[in-house]
């Protein structure tokens, strides 16, 4: 698309109308002017042709005898009559052999007359001159040729005058056209522009209660009606939207209220849970203590009345009670971990690992086990929770390497875009087929006789790691040892 067309397309409607009208006016004026000019010219040429033909014929007729009797002086005399016509610049007579016979040239000019006769025919125009050559006949027989040259500059000037007048007229008409088109534009595009302004104002002020004024019953009226209908619809639509928004706000408020209620309920539930834990730790343990304690009393003070079977039974009662105590303790620990939000700080994992290693070694001084803690392990985590996690992991490793002569436990880190910590041992290991059960509470992959434990430790570790947004997984094989990996992002 040409930039001109594009420019016109972006013109305001007002100017589009005016430009169009003026454009049409200009084109018609130019066409009419040009047509008139052509007509004028044709008219002149026809007139000139008639005049020249007549004049040439008259001259020819008057020169027949002179030509016949070879009387150049007489011929020249005849040609001299041309002086009476100021437009004739020159005239010439040629004999039957087309040779110049007699000539006339207006005194003030240098006439381009040829020595031999030009071709006979209709007048030719050019160079401000018109030329004609005719055969001179006497009683049907040619006696020579006559040639006339006429000045057409005056006529050209007339044409120029005509063009000038046309130009003036053009300007006048165009000016009138401009006013007419401005008036017409107001009449036609005025309502459209009003409508456009109204649309813009409504767009800016968002006031959909405004209406366009209908002034006519033409297409413009239809447009105004349509526009107003549309405004009605928009108004309705907006009312609906407002209504919907109110509804939404109410719903939101309800939701927020509900969230607050639920949060309060949750907090209450949490408190209840805490109270429950508290009472569990107190009240559930008390009977166990009694069971164990009095069993011991029985064993100590009434052994004489008990046979071996009775003593064995009492021992079993005591073991069960103690195991239940452990279970309760571990459950409480898990509950506590679940409740607590991690309080992150810089933790020296290496130091933590070494402390736990020492504790483990002290617990079981007879065991030969090598605990290797990589230096400089650091993490941004809750120190207390991390201690619980490491205690469990290292404790597990310690436990499951119990039957190894050369036990080896390792705490370290691999860096693979983000640090991955690991606790690796060369202990009993487990079948990876059961890996999915590893972190579920009370799930055990070994019998209690083999390795004691409650099956809550790894569940606790997993909760601690996931509380930190991390991930824990294991790699193991039976008798090939186990490695636990975890991240602390």
């Amino acid at each position, binding site marked *: 698309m040409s930039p001109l067309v594009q420019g016109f397309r972006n013109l305001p409607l007002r100017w589009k109308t005016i430009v169009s009208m003026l454009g049409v006016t200009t084109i018609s004026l130019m066409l009419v002017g040009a047509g008139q000019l052509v007509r004028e010219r044709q008219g002149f040429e026809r007139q000139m042709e008639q005049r020249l033909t007549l004049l040439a014929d008259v001259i020819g007729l*008057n020169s*027949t*005898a*002179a030509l*016949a*009797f*070879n*009387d150049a002086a*007489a011929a020249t005399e005849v040609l001299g009559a041309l002086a009476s016509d100021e437009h004739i610049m020159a005239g010439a007579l040629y*004999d*039957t*052999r087309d040779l110049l016979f007699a000539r006339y040239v207006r005194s003030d000019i240098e006439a381009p007359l040829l020595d031999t006769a030009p071709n006979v025919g209709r007048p030719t125009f050019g160079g401000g001159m018109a030329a004609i050559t005719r055969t001179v006949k*006497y*009683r049907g*027989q*040619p*006696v020579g040729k006559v040639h006339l040259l006429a000045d057409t500059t005056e006529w050209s000037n007339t044409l120029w005058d005509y063009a000038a007048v046309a130009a003036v007229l053009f300007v006048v008409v165009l000016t009138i056209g401009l006013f007419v088109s401005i008036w017409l534009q107001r009449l036609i595009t005025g309502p459209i522009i009003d409508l456009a302004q109204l649309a813009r104002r409504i767009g800016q002020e968002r006031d959909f209660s405004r209406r366009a004024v209908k002034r006519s019953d033409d297409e413009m009226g239809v447009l105004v009606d349509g526009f107003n209908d549309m405004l009605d619809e928009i108004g309705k639509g907006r009312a609906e939207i407002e209504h919907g928004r109110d509804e939404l706000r109410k719903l939101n408020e309800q939701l927020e209220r509900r969230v607050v209620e639920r949060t309060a309920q949750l907090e209450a539930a949490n408190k209840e849970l805490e109270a429950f834990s508290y009472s569990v730790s107190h009240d559930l343990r008390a009977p166990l203590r009694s069971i164990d304690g009095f069993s011991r009393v029985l064993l100590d003070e009434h052994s004489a009345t008990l046979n071996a079977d009775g003593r064995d039974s009492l021992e079993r009662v005591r073991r069960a009670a103690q195991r239940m105590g452990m279970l309760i303790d571990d459950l409480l620990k898990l509950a506590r971990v679940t409740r607590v939000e991690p309080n992150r700080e810089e933790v020296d994992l290496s130091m933590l690992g070494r402390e736990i290693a020492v504790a483990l070694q002290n617990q079981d001084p007879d065991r030969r086990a090598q605990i290797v803690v990589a230096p400089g392990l650091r993490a941004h985590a809750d120190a207390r929770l991390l201690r619980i996690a490491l205690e469990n992991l290292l404790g597990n490793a310690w436990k499951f390497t119990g039957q190894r002569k050369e036990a080896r436990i390792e705490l370290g880190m691999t860096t693979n875009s983000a640090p991955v910590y690991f606790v690796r041992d060369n202990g009993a290991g487990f079948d990876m087929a059961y890996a999915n059960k590893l972190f579920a509470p009370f799930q055990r992959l070994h019998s209690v006789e083999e390795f004691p434990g409650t099956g809550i430790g790894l569940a606790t570790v997993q909760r601690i790691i996931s509380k930190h947004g991390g991930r824990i997984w294991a790699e193991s094989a039976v008798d090939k040892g186990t490695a636990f990996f975890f991240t602390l992002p």
Partner: protein
Amino acid sequence: MAFLKKRIKAIAGALLAAVAWALAAHAEAPVLEYQVKASYLYNFARFITWPEDVVARQGNFNLCIVGAERFGSALDALAGERVNGQTIALHRLEQAGQARANRCHLLFIASGRDGTATGGPERGLLTIGETPGFLERGGIINLVEVNGRIRFEIRQPAARQAGLVVSSQLLGLAIQR
């Protein structure tokens, strides 16, 4: 007609060539002088109108010459030409008196041969001479040499008496007396 026009053109060309020659060197060649005069005779026939009755009466245009020997072959070109719708018929006469018998339309009397002039204009007869005083002796046109050019004088009353209408142009070319 086309062929006719061609012929006329050829004759006129030849005649004018002769005229041109005569203009350049008229004194040397009397034959050339008569060639011009022959063409004059032909042109006089064209520019003068004969009475209707005379034309209707006769078939040919009888061009009669007294002293035709001076023209040499210049006259031959005229024979058979048409003038005013009639074919030219050449009549070489010994004396002017034979004109009536030959029903002449045009009678040319060479110089020195007009002793036998008719004395007055005769109806339908154009008399042309080349002798000074020819008009006074009743001739209608007399050929005269002026400044090396052959020109002519016309006695209009005589022409009128003979019933001949002379073209005004021809009159315009004639020497004014």
